């Protein structure tokens, strides 16, 4: 903690040690955000129903299996829709809500209190994690219940799930907070964040087998996180029989970790560089 000039003049100086810490205030932020989120039922339904609806629609349209691998299309895109759902609950939700909170003065008010700035981010990350876990559990339940998805028995695959999930959710959370600085107002926030989300969904192998996309599109998609999130999740839930239909004929775990981590670091740097507690229009 910085010692400020003139602190000797203080009459009733408060020692920094007595200020509530980042963990306590961060947890308090997360609790408030979750409580308020689940109070707005329309937002809850929209957030959770969207991927469920997509899963059910695509499950009704497509049948059969992926290019002679014996893996059903339905199971293939469960992994993709889980990845896309994680991106939606982290990147989209945070990109929009942080922009709204900058616009409506929430951030400015918090910046005027002794709350540790990191507590705000801790609250957002925990909030997004809880939503992502819930989303994933719902999708898996539908997959197992309706589409014959079998949860992995191999503990190694659960370890893969843990790191792919945390890296995906963490990276998309940071990118969501970073992208929140782009919209000029709360009104434009949802539109600004859905553009990259929609584009990536269609090029990253969420709804169609990735290798059935044109080669150029595959190469572009491989620069962005969602393709790797989908592939990482396929490596958890789908059998190795699918490997011939994967772009490198392998799960490419090291590359997945590298690309997601690189985007995570980029997101963190962007947050640190561009995050503003006040809106640029007045205030």
């Amino acid at each position, binding site marked *: *903690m*910085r010692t*400020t*000039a*003139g*602190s*000797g*003049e*203080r*009459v*009733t*100086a*408060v*020692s*920094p040690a*007595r*200020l*509530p810490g980042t963990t*306590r*205030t961060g947890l*308090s*932020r997360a609790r*408030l955000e979750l*409580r*308020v989120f689940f*109070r*707005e039922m329309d937002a809850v339904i929209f957030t959770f129903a969207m991927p469920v609806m997509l899963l059910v629609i695509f499950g009704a349209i497509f049948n059969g299996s992926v290019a002679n691998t014996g893996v059903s299309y339905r199971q293939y895109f469960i992994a993709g829709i889980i990845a896309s759902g994680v991106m939606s609950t982290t990147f989209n939700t945070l990109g929009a809500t942080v922009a709204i*909170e900058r616009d*409506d*003065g*929430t951030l*400015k*008010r918090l*910046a*005027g*209190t*002794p*709350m*540790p700035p990191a507590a705000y981010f801790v609250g957002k990350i925990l909030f997004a994690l809880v939503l992502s876990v819930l989303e994933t559990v719902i999708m898996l339940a539908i997959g197992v219940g309706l589409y014959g998805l079998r949860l992995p028995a191999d503990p190694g695959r659960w370890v893969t799930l843990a790191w792919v999930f945390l890296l995906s959710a963490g990276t998309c959370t940071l990118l969501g907070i970073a992208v929140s600085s782009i919209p000029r107002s709360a009104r434009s926030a949802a539109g600004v964040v859905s553009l990259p989300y929609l584009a990536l969904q269609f090029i990253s192998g969420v709804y169609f087998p990735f290798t059935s996309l044109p080669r150029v599109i595959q190469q572009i998609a491989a620069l962005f996180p969602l393709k790797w999130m989908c592939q990482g999740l396929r490596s958890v839930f789908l059998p190795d029989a699918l490997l011939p239909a994967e772009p490198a004929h392998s799960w490419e775990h090291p590359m997945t970790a590298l690309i997601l981590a690189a985007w995570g670091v980029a997101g963190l740097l962007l947050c640190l560089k561009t995050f503003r507690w*006040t809106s640029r229009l007045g205030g």
Partner: protein
Amino acid sequence: MTDLTVRARGLRKRYDDVVAINGLDLDIVQGEVFALLGPNGAGKSTTVEIFEGYRKRDAGEVRVLGTDPAVADRAWRARIGIVPQSSRDSAESTVREIVRHFAGFYPNPHDPEEVIEQTGLLEKADTRLHALSGGQRRRVDVALGIVGRPDLVFLDEPTTGFDPEARRQFWTLVRGLSRDGTTIMLTTHYLEEAEALADRVGVIARGQLRAVAPPASLGGRDRATARVTWTGPDGPRSVETRTPTQTVAEISALFGGEIPGLTVSRPTLEDIYLTMIRDAQ
């Protein structure tokens, strides 16, 4: 000078081509209610936001509670309370939730329930913020500003858009805070608000402080000539005088007692203020 809660010297701030503050000097004494009066665009909000640590100054010296707000730490933030100009945030939280939540940021907060009661929100404690009236919403802002037990509270145009009754209730709340020893810096463009609340008033225009004085003596108001008016046998009469007491005694003698329609008036704070603003243009 330990009893100076705010001290600014030669404060300057410009936005692109516009000079917002142009060499402002200001002292606020511990325990007083200080009102900063000025027209829109005079530099009120910029000044307050520099004191609050929201904006960086271009030049000059500022000490708030002995610390430069531009480099202040969390311990300093715990000693100030900010009531922003208008707010729309946290619409889906209830009053009780949000006051408790903010109390958790401070090392030695007030009991949130007491603050809710003190700000007159007890009946609305479980209401979501979006369902409150403008005046109630403002009380929540005050509750959030004072729950940390601050030594200094900034109130930025706190009663804009209030009806007269809500304004009176708000004044009572501010007086209560002041009685408890909190230093208060208030910006307003309501002259009667400054007159009702402030120990001292500073008039800001074109980025400089034009005058600082208790409301009753701002701009020599207490020494200005008084106007005595009454109804004489031939209709209304009036004189300007530096000795109104003597004038009234003389007229009273003429009437042999009560003077019909007697008034004695000095320039209102508004008259003085408008003259100052005009002279600054």
